[in-house]
């Protein structure tokens, strides 16, 4: 049991609980009988090839989709049926490619994370201002607070949307490919922020494609393929040569980072041996 349960309302543990969930987009079954749990204070990486059902799974947890079979529970609530405001206070989702059609300032975008805590007209109270300042500071955005989001670089934008999710003050943070399209330094920074959020007591679940970043940063990995969970556990147990070949169809060399002890897998590019 996590020590964070001593603070705030007594959430069920694990806070995210998916049982035998199934979801199909028309004829195409995206998630088929998936069971998945995540706890507060834990950083879980969701891995798998394209089309494995990772994004569908986090959308089920966020209540944006409903399962056609099985159950999804977020802090004990059915997130698809519960009022959106309640769900938004429990769970924040950072989408892969956030929309930026209007030139809002960084501070305005981060303040939008407070909507579920505010009244109809979104008048900011002291709590809201404090949460926004905290999120801006945590994501190193204070100097950019007055800038228009449409004028930012890709890495800066990611930080803005991460800050918005932090300002939301959720218990569960869902990240859909937080490192996509970022350079190495920004990828590492994104993973560090996610890790820090988990150390701060949040339940963080991230869809990830980079196996080595996932192995280095996550407490636990869940591997999916064709709508099913095929493995879960500590990174070293999930990322075996055999499993990576099974799940991704790529032969790899598996080793260990000499500096940190983290599991490392490298594709055997050039050798076509299977």
């Amino acid at each position, binding site marked *: 049991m996590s020590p964070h349960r001593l603070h705030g309302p007594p959430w069920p543990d694990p806070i995210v609980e998916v049982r035998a969930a199934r979801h199909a987009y028309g004829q195409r079954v995206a998630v088929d009988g998936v069971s998945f749990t995540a706890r507060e204070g834990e950083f879980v990486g969701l891995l798998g090839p394209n089309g494995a059902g990772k994004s569908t799974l986090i959308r089920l947890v966020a209540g944006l989709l409903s399962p056609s079979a099985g159950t999804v529970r977020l802090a004990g609530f059915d997130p698809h049926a519960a009022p959106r405001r309640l769900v938004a206070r429990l769970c924040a989702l950072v989408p892969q490619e956030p*929309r930026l059609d*209007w030139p809002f300032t960084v501070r305005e975008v981060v303040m939008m994370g407070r*909507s579920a805590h505010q009244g109809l007209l979104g008048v900011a109270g002291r709590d809201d201002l404090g949460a926004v300042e905290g999120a801006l500071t945590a994501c190193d955005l204070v100097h950019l607070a007055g800038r228009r989001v449409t004028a930012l670089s890709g890495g800066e934008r990611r930080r803005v949307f991460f800050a918005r999710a932090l300002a939301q003050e959720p218990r569960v943070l869902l990240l859909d490919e937080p490192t996509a399209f970022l350079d190495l330094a920004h990828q590492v920074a994104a993973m560090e922020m996610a890790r820090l959020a988990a150390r701060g007591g949040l339940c963080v679940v991230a869809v990830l494609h980079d196996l080595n970043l996932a192995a280095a940063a996550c407490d636990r990995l869940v591997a999916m393929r064709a709508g099913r969970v095929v493995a879960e556990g500590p990174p070293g147990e999930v990322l075996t040569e055999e499993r990576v070949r099974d799940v991704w169809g790529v032969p790899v060399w598996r080793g260990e980072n000499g500096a940190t002890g983290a599991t490392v897998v490298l594709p055997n590019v050039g050798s076509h041996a299977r």
Partner: protein
Amino acid sequence: MTRLRRSRLTLALGLGLLAIVAAVGVSCLLGPQPISLRAALDGVEPDRAILFGLRLPRAALAAVVGFALAAAGTALQALLRNPLAEPFVLGVSGGAALGGTLVMLAAAGLSAVAGPAGALLGSAPPVAAGAVAGAVLSTFLVFGLGRIGGRLVPEAALLVGIVFNAFVAGVITLLKMLAPPDQAARLLYWLMGAIGYESPATLAAGTVLVLLSVGTLGLLSARLNLLTLGDEEAASLGVDVKRTRALVFFAASAATGAAVALAGMVGFVGLIVPHLVRRLVGPDHRLLLPASALFGAAFLVGADALARLAFLPLGTEPPVGAVTAFLGGPFFLWLLRRQAREHDEATT
């Protein structure tokens, strides 16, 4: 809302009100018959009759219509996440015109059988109700057909609106042929988008409907900010997307329907005004929506004064819809090309 934002709100709304006062002043004092404000206030005829009987009601009508159209345009742009959205471009005005036309024709048909009942149906309130119903139905139709694979595609919705507009124009032309000559003349005058002279009761009823619907949009303005981010993000930030969007649809359609009932098809106000006001106050709809509504009122009063005065030597005046189309058509193309260029730059 921070203190900074509150002062910006006060400034934007103050400027908007000031613009309305200036436009109404110009509109009331200028005309073929010069009048003196002092004489009119002192009750000297004909100055008093011209000011209070003709020019002020006409300016008030233009203000209400501009207020409604600019607010509706702002809201539709937020929903479509595209600055090209506008009640006229999206076919909402066309739907309202069709609704009103159908009621008028039904009234003409009814009066052939039962005179008083027909006259009652042909009076302002039922025609306005028809216009509002037409606006609501066409909004749902255009946004419904603009969904492809369950997702709203802004470009598709815009195209659907433009095609729907052309379709409605054809239907109205056909219907006009069926109408008796006196009804056809009334219809023609109404549809061309002229700010005319409505009875005080009609003007008051229209104003109430516009204030109610724009007020609803104002209450939803913080939600509109979130809807500009996309459905999924708005939902994950705590917005009940379906319900909110239906409310916005309904309020924007009602405002458009009331505007069309009062003045016919006046296009592009909801395109030009929100775009310029956005440059002034930024994209936050809590500022943008009320400021756009006020500047929209000032804009249409000014455009109507221009229509009234520009052709004075010829002894004639075009409907204000012609003036806004003259300004709005090129503006739409400029926005379209700029947007396409930005999109091009963003993807290459």
